[in-house]
């Protein structure tokens, strides 16, 4: 087929050609498509990034200036205002912000540890071992995965009330032990990636089931462990409804509850913060406290997030 090979044409002078003709250097797009693509991508980029930029510079400003229509919404004040905002926040209670941050960290870490310690072995067993009742466990996992988590919060509260765990951090940590989605993901992961021959070889070498899991399943499961760790971290760090119902003493709050209290501080609702100098810069700084750690993790763990979201869909 000699006719299929066309000689490369010399550059066309007429600019109209760029608009209509397809340019191989632009993956076959013509000028209109190329510009349209850029405009749409950048417009959405602005939607996603501008509010975050605003939030980052808000603590540098004075709240009255922020309402001044003659000033740009993106004008930056002195960086030292960050410290002023922090001191204002520190005025409520004995540095509650620090307490909330510490609470958030330990609630989150315990939740991550607990859910992984239970989900990974369960997913592994469902994938590699045969036993009576396996189908039942699979079905229960799917059904409980579907149960809307937030509809369970109030019954869970009454249950915790029965065992007198309300206002105790464990009422927020313990429920994360049950992670049907994590079980499902690790089940899918192990049934797709774990070579059966390897397990058989391990058995021949005299490993019992526990040793097989510990020496083969765990090391080969590093990817799914990281993915689940990320997902659980994200869920627990941002958990609001459950702690909102379970914890009502401000010393036990996590960051989301603390931020909510900050937001309500000047909203005219009778909270304990009402008399304090909590305005837009202080609220923004509180929000950054909650967001920035997660954002840093997001930057470095992008592939785990993507894998975590997609993992449930990759089963053929």
């Amino acid at each position, binding site marked *: 087929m000699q006719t299929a090979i066309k000689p490369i044409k010399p550059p066309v002078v007429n600019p109209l050609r760029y608009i209509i003709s397809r340019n191989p250097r632009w993956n076959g797009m013509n000028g209109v498509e190329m510009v349209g693509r850029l405009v749409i991508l950048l417009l959405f980029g602005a939607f996603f990034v501008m509010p975050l930029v605003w939030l980052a510079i808000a603590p540098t400003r004075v709240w009255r200036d922020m309402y001044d229509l003659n000033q740009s919404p993106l004008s930056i004040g002195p960086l030292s205002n960050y410290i002023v905002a922090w001191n204002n926040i520190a005025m409520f209670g004995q540095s509650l912000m620090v307490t909330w941050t510490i609470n958030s960290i330990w609630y989150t870490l315990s939740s991550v540890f607990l859910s992984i310690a239970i989900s990974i072995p369960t997913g592994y067993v469902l994938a590699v071992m045969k036993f009576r009742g396996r189908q039942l466990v699979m079905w229960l996992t799917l059904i409980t995965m579907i149960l809307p988590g937030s509809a369970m919060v109030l019954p869970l509260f009454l249950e915790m009330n029965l065992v007198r765990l309300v206002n105790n951090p464990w009422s927020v940590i313990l429920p994360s032990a049950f992670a049907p989605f994590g079980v499902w993901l690790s089940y899918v992961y192990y049934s797709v990636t774990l070579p059966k021959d390897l397990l058989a070889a391990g058995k021949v070498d005299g490993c019992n089931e526990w040793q097989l899991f510990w020496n083969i399943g765990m090391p080969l499961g590093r990817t799914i462990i990281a993915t689940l760790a990320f997902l659980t971290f994200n869920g627990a760090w941002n958990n609001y409804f459950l702690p909102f119902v379970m914890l009502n003493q401000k010393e036990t709050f996590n960051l989301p509850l603390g931020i909510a209290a900050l937001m309500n501080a000047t909203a005219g609702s009778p909270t304990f913060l009402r008399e304090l100098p909590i305005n837009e810069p202080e609220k923004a700084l*509180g929000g950054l406290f909650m967001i920035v750690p997660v954002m840093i993790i997001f930057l470095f763990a992008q592939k785990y997030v993507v894998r975590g979201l997609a993992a449930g869909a990759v089963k053929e």
Partner: protein
Amino acid sequence: MAVQTSAMVNAPIRSAKRLRVNPAYLFLLPYLVAMLLFSLGPAIYALLLMFATFKVGRPQFFEAGFTNIVTALKDPYLLPAFENVLRFLVVSVPFGLVFVILLALLLHARPNRFSLLMRTIYFLPGAVTGPALVMLFLFTFNPDLSVFRALLHFMGYTDLKQVVNNDTAPVVFTLMGFFGGAGGWIAVFFGALQGISEELIEAAIMDGCNPIQLAWLIKRPLITRYVAFMLINVLAGNVQLFAEPQLMSSASATISNEWSPNLVSYTWAFGIGNFGASAVVSVLMMLIGIVCAYAVIRATNFYSTEQTNAE
């Protein structure tokens, strides 16, 4: 150990067999206990509470008959709350699907450094959820403060309550959800698109596909599996709105404090102290959640529990 050995000497085969528990059950035990305590247990407890009264502080089971159910269903806020969520879903699900797919396809039309940068930019707001997300948007939707002040003024808005109120809530929550959630799904779809083989795309180009046809006819069908998965997740997540309307209501009084079913249930329990009626709303939400998820799963044939091991 000693007892066991002697028993095995006496009846070597039989007792050894009887003592042996499949280790799978030991692995599963913690999970099953957790399931009972934190999922099935509360669900069953909620079913019981529907028929219980709380006369002396402790639940009196089966005392209430159907009165809780009647009380809860007669609540004038209940139906509007479900309507609100439905209106929200009608806006948010198509909006989310269309723009997530569009952006993923546009990024993939020319995968280069710029695409990767934009993907990361779309992705980062995923770190903003719950109260932080509500706070950010109370600022962003406030025509005085907003970084998009010029746009809001241009559209004729001068006050937060014009932008955020019960009528605009479905759009407001859609934009908030898109801000926080779209990037993750865009990255997922982008990843899926990168899995499409070069040969397939080259063959399509040889056959005369332009980029738009390529995206719509070749790439889009190959990611529908992910679309189904996203649909399940987005539906499940969106029905459960609590933090957003609750905080919008408490921090700015722009949105009704009984906007979503979760808020109605919460008010029954902690505002009024009627845990029976609260349980009715919880059970109703569970039922709707199960029916919807079941419908989507059946329609897309998504989960199969019989695993064929990939060799």
